[in-house]
């Protein structure tokens, strides 16, 4: 295969594909993450409605509250692309503002999730209470851990920019973090619909309050 030179970061990288290997690796990683979250969502669906003791989903879910969390995470995807766009144009100050905003929105989402978990625990739902608790906390906990890793990466980017180590030419690194962040967002899009909004068919206990 013809060898091509790819501009990746501050130096030109030689690749046989003509594509930056970092970006290919990130897409392969995200592709494998589909299998991880697919397994967790499938496990939740498999045990859905099979809990023999409460609390059940309709006892603890607060849809308006989770909707706000969803809006927050969705909005953070917008600030993430604006951050990348700013760095690609060489606007380092805007890049920092948008990246910090994205991290702040991520922290807000995680704060909301911690509050939600604490509320569920107060209502008697813990990891070992029933099948719903085990599968729900495992799935959303893994997602929350991913968001936390994303926040750390965003803060690292801001730190690097203040050290002058993140010029316009290194926008590919920001794009990688952005891809990860958007992936976390699309996983939440699925979780919000499948876990929170679609009612449990086997229980027949759907609230439309």
């Amino acid at each position, binding site marked *: 295969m013809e060898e091509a030179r790819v501009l990746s970061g501050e130096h030109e990288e030689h690749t046989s594909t003509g*594509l930056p290997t970092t970006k290919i690796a990130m897409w*392969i990683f995200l592709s494998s993450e589909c299998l991880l979250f697919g397994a967790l969502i499938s496990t939740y669906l*498999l045990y859905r409605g099979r809990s023999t003791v409460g609390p059940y989903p309709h006892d603890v879910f607060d849809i308006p509250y989770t909707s706000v969390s969803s809006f927050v995470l969705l909005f953070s*995807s917008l600030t993430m692309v604006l951050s990348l766009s700013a760095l690609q144009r060489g606007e380092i100050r805007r890049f920092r503002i948008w990246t910090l905003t994205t991290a702040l929105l991520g922290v807000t989402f995680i704060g909301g999730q911690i509050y939600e978990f604490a509320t569920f625990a107060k209502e008697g739902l813990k990891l070992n209470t029933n099948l719903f608790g085990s599968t729900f906390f495992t799935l959303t906990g893994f997602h929350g851990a991913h968001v936390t890793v994303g926040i750390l990466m965003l803060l690292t980017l801001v730190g690097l920019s203040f050290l002058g180590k993140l010029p316009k030419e290194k926008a590919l690194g920001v794009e990688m973090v952005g891809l990860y962040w*958007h992936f976390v967002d699309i996983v939440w899009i699925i979780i919000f619909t499948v876990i929170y909004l679609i009612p449990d068919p086997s229980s027949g206990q759907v609230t439309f309050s």
Partner: protein
Amino acid sequence: MMRQEPEKTKPPAPVAEEEGSGVGTPLRAREHTETHHPGPKQYVTIAAILGLITAAEVGVYYVESLRDLLVFLLLGMMVVKFALVVLWFMHVRFDNPGYGRIFATGLALAATVYVIVLLTFGVFS
């Protein structure tokens, strides 16, 4: 006065492949497909659409008359939101198609494996 011939412009140098054809696409084609990301206005428009769809999802959840269609409506809106984020925010629509193919492979594999598992255990029945 002599009439001046309009200056003939040189045709652009031929590009190996104008459209990216996946991993292995020559460098120039890659540049063509990777440098045209949307601008901030387009991103805001997409985010507004995503926000509206999310609002519609929550709204539909509370409409009792749509209870029979609820699952289909919610899944439909979820797919649209998923596609918008992947195509626009993750730039799959604008980048080399090879990236999208890598992601689609993992997604299709996951969907196939887990749908088979769920069907085996009679989750949808």
